[in-house]
């Protein structure tokens, strides 16, 4: 069990590290997908050890929400690219005080 806890924590940390280090908005969305998948992996591991099928239903709903989120995020990225001809996240700092 500790193997899967450590593995999914490592994957989540890699996703958070990627959120900090990369500038491209599409890669930031991919890091979010990586973090969602690490949470899914932990849920499936607990489901297998607990002998219950409810966590796998939660994983199913997570996949559904992730699909909707990726669609909306990518269309927002396309709109931002149309306005500024770039997907660099550091260009979008208009709300910075």
């Amino acid at each position, binding site marked *: *069990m*500790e*193997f*899967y*806890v*450590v*593995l999914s*924590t490592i*994957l989540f*940390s*890699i*996703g*958070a*590290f990627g959120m*900090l*280090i990369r*500038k*491209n908005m*599409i*890669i930031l*969305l*991919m*890091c979010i*997908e*990586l973090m969602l*998948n690490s949470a*899914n*992996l932990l849920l*499936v*591991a*607990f*489901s*297998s*050890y*607990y*002998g*219950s*099928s*409810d966590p*796998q*239903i939660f994983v*199913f*709903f997570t*996949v*559904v*929400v*992730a699909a909707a*989120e*990726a*669609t*909306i995020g*990518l*269309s*927002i990225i*396309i*709109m931002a690219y*149309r306005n500024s001809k770039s*997907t*660099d996240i*550091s260009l979008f700092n208009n709300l910075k005080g």
Partner: protein
Amino acid sequence: MITDILTWILGGLTIGSALMVVLSNHPIRSVLFLVITFFFISGHYILLNAQFLAIVNIIVYAGAIMVLFLFVLMLLNLSAEGLPKSSRYLTLGSVIIGGLFFIVLIAALKDSLHFEALNPGSNSVGLVQNLGKTLFSKYIVPFEVSSILFISAMVGAVMLAKREKHIVE
């Protein structure tokens, strides 16, 4: 025994390809590494007796979402040299923050590290029969709500990505 070796090998490959997602310069290369990561995670699902979720993960994530990402990347025509590199201080700070985040999460999850298997030997949990029974009896309302979520996501994506003709300057 052979399952343990396979689990360790798959775990190392998963971490390696996830690192390549973050570290590779070209966006298309990192999308392809993310697809490989999802295949390895599906391998973990099969080893954990979640066969249906392994197939769903491959079909939905690697087949649909990642193709969408790849499509948008190729549509936007991004190249590796068009994006600025992050500075060395930012990289060092990100490594430190990621490592500290990992340590904090492990400390928070410390109690679950020695989790005793409550119901071992139940291999049929992840089969489509049991999952369908649970999904369509206990979780029928969230299942129906997710269809409304999909409708609103579809309408929202079309509305956002549509090119507006009448923008007032």
